[in-house]
């Protein structure tokens, strides 16, 4: 019948109208500041720097625990070039005890960052990871959106909280690496000790 499509259409909207008053399914709106939709684990916004420090560490402890070695790989690979790194003059021992450079300056301009995660992919030290903060509205672009070392570094516990499975995998890999490094170091030390012992006691000819 001519016109039945029009009535069908009206019926659809009428169902919405009535349904939205009693059927939660029909009103999927999340009223944002008061209510929040859950964000998925892979949700990402901007990078932050992981620091091996206690969860409630202060700024200096967070800086001391940074994993990065200022190798500048991420700086060179960032497509919009929004990372700025300056190497330190001195060296500090890293988690494995090896003396390493550390970033004296590490800045990311997150008003330029496009969240591509390339810096995370290229970092060989699991130092830079993607954050989940998104309420970053500020009155000025600079310096509020130019994040420095202090504001970029966050404890590993935070990383574990926002990305549990990824952080667990990273931690396991790092622990295995450190164990292997320690085993290598032990083996090397043992070999050296053995060499020394051998040198001290001349072989019986």
């Amino acid at each position: 019948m001519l016109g039945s499509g029009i009535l069908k259409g009206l019926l659809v909207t009428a169902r919405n109208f009535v349904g939205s008053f009693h059927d939660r399914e029909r009103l999927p709106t999340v009223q944002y500041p008061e209510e929040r939709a859950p964000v998925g684990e892979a949700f990402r916004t901007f990078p932050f720097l992981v620091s091996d420090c206690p969860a409630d560490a202060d700024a200096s402890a967070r800086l001391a625990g940074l994993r990065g070695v200022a190798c500048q790989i991420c700086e060179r690979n960032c497509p919009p070039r929004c990372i700025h790194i300056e190497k330190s003059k001195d060296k500090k021992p890293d988690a494995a005890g090896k003396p390493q450079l550390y970033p004296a300056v590490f800045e990311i301009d997150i008003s330029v960052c496009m969240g591509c995660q390339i810096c995370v992919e290229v970092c060989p030290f699991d130092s830079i990871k993607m954050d989940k903060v998104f309420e970053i509205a500020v009155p000025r672009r600079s310096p509020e959106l130019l994040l420095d070392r202090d504001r970029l570094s966050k404890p590993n516990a935070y990383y574990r909280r926002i990305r549990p499975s990824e952080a667990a995998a990273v931690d396991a890999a790092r622990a295995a690496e450190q164990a292997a490094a320690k085993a290598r170091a032990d083996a090397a030390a043992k070999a050296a000790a053995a060499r020394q012992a051998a040198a001290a006691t001349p072989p019986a000819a």
Partner: protein
Amino acid sequence: MPVTLETFPLALRDWLCAFLPQEFHWLLSGLLVIIAILTVFGLGFAFITVAERKFLGRFQNRIGPNRVGPFGLLQPFADAVKALTKEDIVPATADKLPHFLAPCVIVSGALLCFAVLPYGRHLVPADLDAGLLYFFAAGAFTELAVFMAGWSSHNKFSLLAGIRALAQLVSYELPLLLATLPAVMAARSLNLQTIVGSQSPAAGLKAGFLPNWHLFSPWGAAGFLIFLIAAIAESNRSPFDLPEGESEIIAGHLTEYSGFKYALFFMGEYFGLIALSGFCATLFLGGWQAPYAALEVIPSWVWFGLKVAALIFTFIWIRATFLRLRMDQLMRFSWKFLLPLALINLGTAAFWLLTAHWQGAWWIALRWFAAAALVIAPYSILGRRLFRGLGARTYEYAPNN
């Protein structure tokens, strides 16, 4: 006259008039009517905008504005402040005078329409003998205003909107007018109070149980639908919002308007909508009358308000449902479908009125049947012709399901 809810507005007016000497009564009572209309419909406009946004939200499974005040009810006042404080930009090359006048014309034209509507048993600001003609004459200001805005803005989108508006409004004015004529024939008068009177419950009920409104007769139902469609087109609302057509021509005639002038256009359009709803209620829904005599304890102006509100809700519902038409579809629909139907409806109404004296169950059944056939047959024949050659699209390589 005893003061009841029914006569309360009049009593209030007389009480206020008593403060002035006799010679000024005509002036003060006139001013009071104007103030009443401006207040009631000004507030009506404000709350219809928020109701429209809230209902549209619900129709689309959203919540709608709910931040300003309880349930978002103060939203229109926030909007008013915003509109008033915005900069008023006039394009350098615009024709300044018509550009300035257009919003004023659209609002005043719509306000003029309010003068003749019978709001209640005793409430009609100007009880003109040719009220219906006056209403159409005042309503035609809308076209003029939209075209003035389109022409004077010196902007191609505005001009396109002006041309579209002229074409659309002229084509839908005809079915609108023709759809009202049967009501005039039934009342034998152009006076709107008389037209309301011809639908009074005192004259008996339609088909034994339905209210004695024109809506519940075959020609009245057809006329009501034609009027409703044409009224949507006349008030530039979706699905006939071609002059504004945001997705095609930015905002049409409103493109070069900002601030309060922009708000005035909205006000004019909503005033026009309220006026057309009131007019439609007057012609087809028995005006201010209660559906049954027993319900007359509720004052007549409340009934009028309820009917207007129901019609406006229908308009919102339609807006939430349908897509905008294309210009050629719009024209074809009016000239090839609505207009012939409205013309045939005149004949149906004439048949109905000439057979009013038929008595006996068989004759009455025959009367209803013949009148219904006179409505439905042309509808389906014309509809088929209108959509001939159109249908569900078929694809050569895709299964059709």
